[in-house]
């Protein structure tokens, strides 16, 4: 079974880490990640930019684009995509296309700050 591990924390707090503190955390994580990768258990890893960089597409008819992260609590996180785009407009274009195929709910489009493709899964 594949599992997604979703990371939650206070972005102000994490954002206020100094370069050294940040690098320290990342290197500790890398130790764990490297081992998982060797074992063929690590898929892609992404670190997202802060929620202030997020845009939300409500999959209504017609779809509505809102600035900011997805803030409702009545819907639940059910999945995610990682897409490679020239800019936000292009990413929203893809989100619209996906939304047309599967209306209802919302997509939060958030730039990825750091991405590691990960290893081959067993």
């Amino acid at each position: 079974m594949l599992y997604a591990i979703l990371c939650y924390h206070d972005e102000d707090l994490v954002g206020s880490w100094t370069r050294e503190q940040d690098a320290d955390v990342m290197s500790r994580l890398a130790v764990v990640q490297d081992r998982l990768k060797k074992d063929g258990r690590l898929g892609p890893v992404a670190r997202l930019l802060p929620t202030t960089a997020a845009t939300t597409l409500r999959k209504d008819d017609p779809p509505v684009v809102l600035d900011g992260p997805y803030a409702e609590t009545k819907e639940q996180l059910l999945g995610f995509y990682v897409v490679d785009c020239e800019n936000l407009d292009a990413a929203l274009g893809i989100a619209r296309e996906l939304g047309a195929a599967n209306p209802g709910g919302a997509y939060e489009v958030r730039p990825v700050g750091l991405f590691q493709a990960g290893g081959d899964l067993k």
Partner: protein
Amino acid sequence: MTCTAWIDAALTSARPQAVGALLRYFRNLDIAEEAFQNACLKALKSWPQNGPPRDPAAWLIMVGRNVAIDEVRRTRKQEALPADEAISDLGDAEEALAERLDGSHYRDDILRLLFICCHPDLPATQQIALALRIVSGLSVKQIARAFLVSEAAMEQRITRAKARVAAASVPFETPGAMERSERLAAVAAMIYLIFNEGYSASGDTSELRKPLCEEAIRLARLLLRLFQSEPEIMGLTALLLLQHARAAARFDANGELVLLDDQDRTLWNQKMIAEGLALIDKAIRHRKSGPYQVQAAIAALHSRATRPEDTDWAQIDLLYGTLEIMQPSPVVTLNRAVAVSKVRGAEEALRMIEPLGERLSGYFHYFGVRGALLMQLARNDEARVAFDRAIALANTSAEAAHIRMHLDRLIRDSQPSGKNASEK
């Protein structure tokens, strides 16, 4: 992270919201601040034992309000002070202990808190000091360090600013849309001032003043979270991030200023750049351009260039042209001239800045740019005059040192090379 560090961070991040709400209840800055302080003391006792509350800001507001009300009651018994004036809505506060905090309410609370700091009666330095003390919660000692003045002097500056704010009428009604956007613009300008106060520091003081830049970015992010659809706030936040991303490359080991062209671009903070670029991307979608967005777009073009020669100067020239229309100022034209010199040559750039001479006669950068352009045109004697004037006007030792480097080159170049070689 240790438990107390977590609490410190939570108190800092809850501060603007909590003090803003307490100010709305008590309509008095000193009472609001003291109530918050008392709530923090209680948090330090209670949170390690009971664990953190789900919503730290709501907890602090409720506890702070209760403590302050108790305090007023006690004082009233002891001294029979006319305390009702100090607390305008005591009744409301008593009954609504478990009032749910709604988002739009504290959006205006925080904006108001920031807005009273940029009261037009206050000179810029007092605005900044007041905002750092009240909104950011930096200690007087920290602020004094960042401003390179004594603690006593800073204490006095803040006290004076508070007195002025107290004397002025602070608007407590919920603002209308127009007023809200005016407040937002004033607050954005103040945040930019805070940033510049840190950014314009010279090399020997830049470490001390760096917290000002970081605090400005924190406040800009806070504002953006409250006003998510304001392209100019996106632009402001992007601008600060893109400029601050270069911090590590802006000074050399001797504390001398390193110009953009000479900076080691591998030292630029790519995480901040990515965030800044993403915010510009978001802002552009609104098709409602503004000065912060344009300035951020200029900074973005610099950030995107891996080497100085990759810089898209033609685009920068265009953007400065837009900025000249939005916000006409000789300084903008001067900046544009630098881009023009790269695209269309020094001669045209020089023609462009010629009419600015009178208005910028006391401006260091004018003579720095003028000297550099004249030097490119091999008009060395005139260049030397401009550089001498620049040195006389330099604000920091780094600026003076930078011009002196140009002058040295001029002198070196004006000597016949053969003679130069034989001397060495």
